[in-house]
């Protein structure tokens, strides 16, 4: 069986318990660095070597992000974990919090130590409230066991973690909207620069990472960056959890090394549901451009390969669609999501997402016009790259890619006022 970095506790009874975690070497990385007073630069160096890339969507190299943090800044600094997990198709972070909370705690504490932070926050999606509660329990356990809070592992160093639960707005997963939300304000992204590393939570230097990213840290510290890198492939270190959904026989989370061929993942998920053919895949969550089956079947699952194929690995949400899917209808759903979730502060996203949705909706309902497809491409072009946060681009990604790869279906819909697929 291949190595799992994050979801290994599932192979044990009582996966979430402190006992299971500690019995299998948990918190040893933390103890070691505290005992040895490992210099922060050394830890950051290992994270750099590991080629760990952000699991929240953008794939930004974590070691590099950590090196931006002004560690010697005299005031407060924070570490924030992003468990907002709102991207349609993504359901991995909740499993980490549910089944391996202590590894995330250890990762956050190590991050706090490394980045000189005073406290950590975990922002948990509002619709998984039970996990907010079980997370609080895990924090209590860790505090009681001396891994968190005052005088951690007898080192004299204090660091605590607070839980914060959202209310379900997708935009609060965007890192600066998340910070606003923790501060008690309306969840709206901030303009960057300044970046959180210099002006973050409460205006203090802050590092924000995804749950899976932070949960990978103890493994890297324990085994060294090089071994993590070798789990995956160059520039794409480690394993990654893929949330496979849609038309497969066994949807679910699969943690596999980065660089695993898509075909292999599909097989692990039981293949396309019986009697059907693969039509298309969204490889990285709803914001990632869709790829047709032919392209996808030749792809390996890592940041670079998927980017080369014209999409994004994103959060690792693999949405599988078979030949029964009407691409116009699928796009209508996606367009509606972004229209509904735009925070509304920037003009192109606020106005453009509604415009795109309404046009796709019209096409789907038999009222398309020949010029609509060019209009959609043009409206999308006026949004992407011109907004405060990436939601604008995320809204355009599906529209542009669906039309690019499945234009014929859209044209058929417009011309015949009905669907080309199925009944």
């Amino acid at each position: 069986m291949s190595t799992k970095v994050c979801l290994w506790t599932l192979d044990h009874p009582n996966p979430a318990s402190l006992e299971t975690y500690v019995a299998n070497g948990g918190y040893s990385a933390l103890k070691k660095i505290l005992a040895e007073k490992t210099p922060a630069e050394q830890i950051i160096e290992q994270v750099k070597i590991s080629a760990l890339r952000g699991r929240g969507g953008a794939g930004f190299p974590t070691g590099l992000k950590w090196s931006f943090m002004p560690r010697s800044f005299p005031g407060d600094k924070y570490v924030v974990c992003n468990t907002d997990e709102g991207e349609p198709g993504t359901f991995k972070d909740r499993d980490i919090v549910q089944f391996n909370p202590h590894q995330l705690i250890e990762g956050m504490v190590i991050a706090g130590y490394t980045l000189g932070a005073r406290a950590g926050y975990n922002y948990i999606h509002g619709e998984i409230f039970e996990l907010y509660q079980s997370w609080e329990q895990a924090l209590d356990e860790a505090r009681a066991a001396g891994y968190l809070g005052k005088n951690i592992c007898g080192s004299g160093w204090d660091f605590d973690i607070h839980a914060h639960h959202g209310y379900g707005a997708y935009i609060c997963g965007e890192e600066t909207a998340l910070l606003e939300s923790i501060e008690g304000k309306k969840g709206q992204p901030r303009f960057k620069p300044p970046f959180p590393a210099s002006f973050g939570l409460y205006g203090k230097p802050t590092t924000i990472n995804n749950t899976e990213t932070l949960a990978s840290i103890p493994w890297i510290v324990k085994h060294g960056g090089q071994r993590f890198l070798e789990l995956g492939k160059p520039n794409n270190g480690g394993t990654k959890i893929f949330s496979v959904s849609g038309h497969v026989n066994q949807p679910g989370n699969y943690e596999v090394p980065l660089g695993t061929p898509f075909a292999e993942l599909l097989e692990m998920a039981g293949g396309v549901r019986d009697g059907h053919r693969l039509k298309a895949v969204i490889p990285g969550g709803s914001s990632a451009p869709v790829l047709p089956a032919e392209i996808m079947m030749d792809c390996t699952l890592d940041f670079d390969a998927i980017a080369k194929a014209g999409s994004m690995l994103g959060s690792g949400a693999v949405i599988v669609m078979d030949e029964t899917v009407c691409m116009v209808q699928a796009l209508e759903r996606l367009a509606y999501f972004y229209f509904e979730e735009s925070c509304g502060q920037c003009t192109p996203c606020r106005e453009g997402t509604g415009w795109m949705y309404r046009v796709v909706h019209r096409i789907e309902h038999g009222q398309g016009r020949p010029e609509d497809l060019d209009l959609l491409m043009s409206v999308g072009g006026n949004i992407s790259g011109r907004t405060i946060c990436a939601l604008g681009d995320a809204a355009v990604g599906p529209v542009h890619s669906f039309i690019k790869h499945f234009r014929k279906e859209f044209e058929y819909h417009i011309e015949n006022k009905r669907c080309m697929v199925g009944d």
Partner: protein
Amino acid sequence: MPHIEIDGSEIEVAPGATLMDAAAQAGIYIPHFCYHKKLSIAASCRMCLVEVEKAPKPLPACATPVTDGMKVWTRSERAVEAQKGVMEFLLINHPLDCPICDQGGECQLQDLAVGYGASNSRYAEPKRVVREKELGPLISTDMTRCIHCSRCVRFGQEIAGMMELGMPGRGEHTEVMPWLEHQVTSELSGNVIDLCPVGALTSKPFRYKARGWELSRRRTVSPHDGLGANMLVHVKDGRVYRAVPQDNEAVNECWLADRDRYSYEALYSEDRLTRPMVRDGDRWVEVDWGKALAQVAGALKMLRDTHGGDAIGVLASPHQTVEELHLLQKLARGLGSDNIDHRLNHSDFAADAGRAGAAWLGLPVAELSNLDRVLLVGATVRKDQPLAAQRLRQAVKAGAQLSIIHAADDDLLCKVAHKLVVKPSALVQALAQVARALQEAGLDVGAVAASIGGVAVTDAARAIAGSLRGGARKALLLGSLAQQHPRAAELHQLAWAIGQASGARVGFLSPAANSVGAQVLGVQPAGGGRNAGRMLAEPRKAYVLMGVEPELDAYDARQALEALRGAEFVVALTAFKGAAPDYAHVLLPIAPYTETAGSYVNMEGRLQAFHGAVKPLGETRPAWKVLRVLGNLLELPGFEFDSAEAVRAEALPEGEATVRARLDNAVEGVALAHPAPVEGLDRVGETPIYQLDPLVRRAPALQKTADAAAPEVWAHGELIARLGLEEGGQVRVTQGEGAAVLRLRRDDRLPVDAVRVAAGHPLTAGLGARLGTLSLERL
């Protein structure tokens, strides 16, 4: 300093500047909506997208910092394409109802749509409609026009200090709205009308009254508080239709208080006096100017000849112009009377003997924003000087420590470092504590040293003193309550001592547009004459009133009314009838500030002149002309002027330099008495914001605001309980011989032994002294 190239020209810009700043410096206009020089950067409208070398995408100029060597194009094909894209988005859901929009002709969206919009829309879907919001009597909404620039929201948070508008909702459902059913109550609320780049927020009183392009603009100066906000009145067919701010960074920046903006409505009040009138037994008859003036001259001459000049008392409003006040004091003195004053609401004039000059702010207005230590004494500054309060708020935001010694812990909408909240009669004692604390710390408090030795210092006073000892730019400012206080002279003396000891500048927050001018011009006794207090306490045979309503303005309104009613002759030079027919014998209609040339001296000593914006209404005449004729009829020398400018040249020969030479807040020789605070309940009787002067009292929209609500009795919850009274019930307020029945309300921000009952209002005019003692009983 970074060098950049913008649209082909090379410029050097300040480090930290944005591309928007750089463009402004180069004289290049970049279209924008959410950006505003006084507000934080939202970077959300995206109208300001420009092309930057090496940047893969267009960047928002308002939020992009310059870096050395940057090359920027604001009008390149890529930049314009991006800007046009944004404009298209802004217009798709916009109602395009310009023909019925009050903003038409002065709308940023309309203007930019001409340059960046397409002539027909590619948007074929249904448009958004947004429900209107009720924001109160001053602001109209047409929310479907909102382009979500968030300026109005940021204004509330950042400038007004209260976030009364928010933007709940997401995406297209985002709407600007007040909290629940609340209306907008900030005393600066009207500024959102100017800030709103479209016609979503417009002036309610001005709604549908005129089109922007029909109006001509005339520069003028606000006649209300001592800040002297610069403004433009918009005029059509000889009538003022609205008032808007005129930028002046040194004074009002780009803001107006609501009082400045909406008081113009009073110019056309039913109560305007437009023809001279004389009393004929019990009747009032309209007469021509000649007859009215002859009667005034005759009566004054006769009384002077029989009783001497001292029989005549002259009371003037500090809202009158330099020219008017100068001629009035000249007339008084020509008649042999030194009984002249503009300080109707003062009660202690003891400092007059020892003051070195005219009381003024003590520093430039603009420096209020940059202070790092402030002590406000007896200042209801948000209501009395709303824009000065705004500047102090900016200072606090930038890190200043602001402390207060006051008779109420009112919300200043900013952080207050330390406070001493005591009843009015304990204010002197409170300020003495600060002086004593400085003395204990080894500082020299000068002449007051001997008289404060026994003062027990509280922790709060020590903290205030400590705060004043730190910082470099610091000020101690005396507000209206301190100026009207029965022991104002002692407060002044102590303030001066504290200033000398701590290095804080001592200043007065002038309550009226020309308070400083009135002092500089000698509109107060100069040779042993009676001040306002004595003129009313020791009734005169004749009174000359200019612009005052003593029954509202006076420190003791009851006493004032009695004195006037008992006089043999009262002439009122006034723009409004008001209650004058009750006690006057002749009413002379004089022009309000919009109908005369004139000037005001603001709280910092700035002389600001203006022309008449419109012709005087009816037979109204500018007061300086009326006084000129009166002077001539009385055969007084030196009343030959052919313009307001000529009067000003005589009044202030060196203009502003003459003013400045006479400003000095130093005082000496005031004895500190230290009586214990008065027993019983002290009245806190301030003039409410919309009762300040005859104009605001008659401005209908302002009178509908929450701030203009009828006076009530406010008391601390503990006091209400102790007296066995009922919150919300009616109580009888008794003050000496005066009484009023008012509703009792709770305000725990007051000291337990003080009761707030506003002065300057008809409902409380019968009560007497503003800061006297009173009693409450259940009805």
